[in-house]
């Protein structure tokens, strides 16, 4: 699944480039069914800042594991890199936003005046991959995951921002 370009908005906040995507909803379909069944569903995120030649200037990779409290009927998200960082008792939209709020790239590697694009890719982790494996994920694995094409059974979302310059970004 691909969300059309221009759906991603970059922000410059406290020396970091963050993104928002008001029209992005990845807690849907099969993943949402699994969540309602009480499963923990991991999502792999890749945020890239590229230049006009499509070179990657900066990149962030994260795995977020989402689960749904069957009693409270609320979502919970854990950032696997630092699982003490978590969002609890969230609506589906809030859980999606929480993931985007917790992936960012440092602005220090970006040059002022350079035309840049933000790209966000999200993939579901294949259901046959045990959730336990998601806890042992490392960055090299995430890079390897995003370097290969997604499999047909994987849901995938890809967004790109309009071109921007660092100085023109709103917080």
């Amino acid at each position, binding site marked *: 699944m691909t969300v059309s370009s221009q759906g991603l908005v970059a922000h410059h906040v406290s020396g970091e480039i963050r993104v928002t995507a008001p029209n992005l909803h990845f807690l849907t379909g099969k993943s949402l069914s699994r969540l309602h069944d009480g499963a923990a569903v991991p999502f792999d995120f890749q945020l890239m800042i590229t230049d006009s030649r499509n070179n990657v200037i900066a990149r962030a990779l994260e795995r977020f594991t989402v689960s749904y409290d069957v009693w409270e009927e609320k979502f919970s998200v854990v950032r696997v890199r630092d699982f003490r960082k978590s969002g609890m008792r969230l609506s589906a939209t809030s859980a999606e936003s929480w993931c985007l709020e917790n992936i960012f790239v440092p602005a220090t590697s970006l040059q002022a005046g350079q035309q840049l694009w933000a790209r966000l890719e999200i993939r579901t982790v294949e259901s046959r991959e*045990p959730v336990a494996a998601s806890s042992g994920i490392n960055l090299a694995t995430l890079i390897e995951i995003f370097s290969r094409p997604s499999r047909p059974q994987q849901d995938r979302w890809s967004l790109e921002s309009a071109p921007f310059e660092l100085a023109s970004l709103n917080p």
Partner: protein
Amino acid sequence: MKLVLVPLLAVCTLLGQSVTPAGDSASDLNVNSRYTIESINFIDQRDYKLSTSALEDIRRLIGAKVNTEALDLLAQRIRAELHAHEVTFKLTRGAAPEEVRVLIHVDQAAGAVDASVPKLIYNSQLGFTGIGQVTTTLGSNALTFQMVRDSDTLIETLSGIQAKYDRLSLAGGRIRLGFEFDAYEDKYDSSTLAALDSASRPSSLGAGLAAGLGAGAYGSRLNYEPSATFVLAAPLTLTVGLSFEQLDHLPSAARPESANAVINTLRYHQRWTGSGGNKEELDAGYSLRAATTFLGSNLAYTRHLAHARYIYSRDAQSVEVAVFAGAIYGQAPLFERFAIGDSAMLLGWNKYKLDPIGGNRLAYGSVTYGYHMMRVFYDTGSVWEQGKPPEPKQSAGVGVSSGLGVLEKGAFLLALAFPLRDGRVTPVLIAGMNF
């Protein structure tokens, strides 16, 4: 050069991060890991044949906190044992706050054929009983074909086939439909034939027995049985249906009789694991079969049977208590009458010597103590006719019972049972699977 170095530095910086915190566990990532597992059941309420170690895994998980990794491993194990296409689980709210139920969904591989021997018994008094079974599943449809020879369960010794169709999952797994067809040839112990002959004479065993015996010996039996099982509140289920039995009498010139009945079975089967590691299991049920002329039945009767089996185990020790009680009113055919003194109830006694045509009243109790594979048991019970006093019999025995090697899927039992009576003691050897 700078453009090459920047992404390289970015990747190096990323690789320097530690993604996985120390002591992380999969279960911590699932918000439901704070809840306790109240029960684990199959969504379609089928009695899947699992190994004793898989059942042990299930028992171990009940009462523990939700652990996604352990549930994933259990799903993989069940998938392998059942040769299923996929096995998944879902969590639903439990009866009490902070507890959840685990429902396992088995997606059978389309057209997969599973052959098994669900029952194989040798009783030195009654001979062999065996069931060979082939099951194939197409989506939510299961077809089961069995070849049966049973000299153990009923007064008659039957040989024949059972064919069953099950529609496994309707209304989100809360309803299951089934249709069963059975065809049996029936044979009888000489003592049964003699007792039937005697009962048919006006001056013999008494008019009460003759009146209560709905049909004499029949040479073959056909059964058509549509049914529907409803999950009332898991694990409580209600099965309702109809049973159309046709009895072809001996000699074949005699007119066939029919025993067409409404059938109802209420069943509760639950397992618990206590905080101290103790495990409990309760399997209780009540069944009612009511044959009525309204369904075109020649025979009119009602048959009630209630049972409860409770198992408590802790570490290597276990205690099992079982009770059965039954009553028949009206003219019931032989296959409905109660018999004990076989490989399941009142072990060691010979059912034909206790009552060669069975009884219309049943009371039975059993206590079994287990330590590792060893079993020591005590049985007591009686079958009798309404209006006559029961004569309770007792037996005791020792044996071994466990999942063993290739027989792991079913409990294996090898037992020596001794009927407790005055005079000589004749031990009876019982060997079998899936007791």
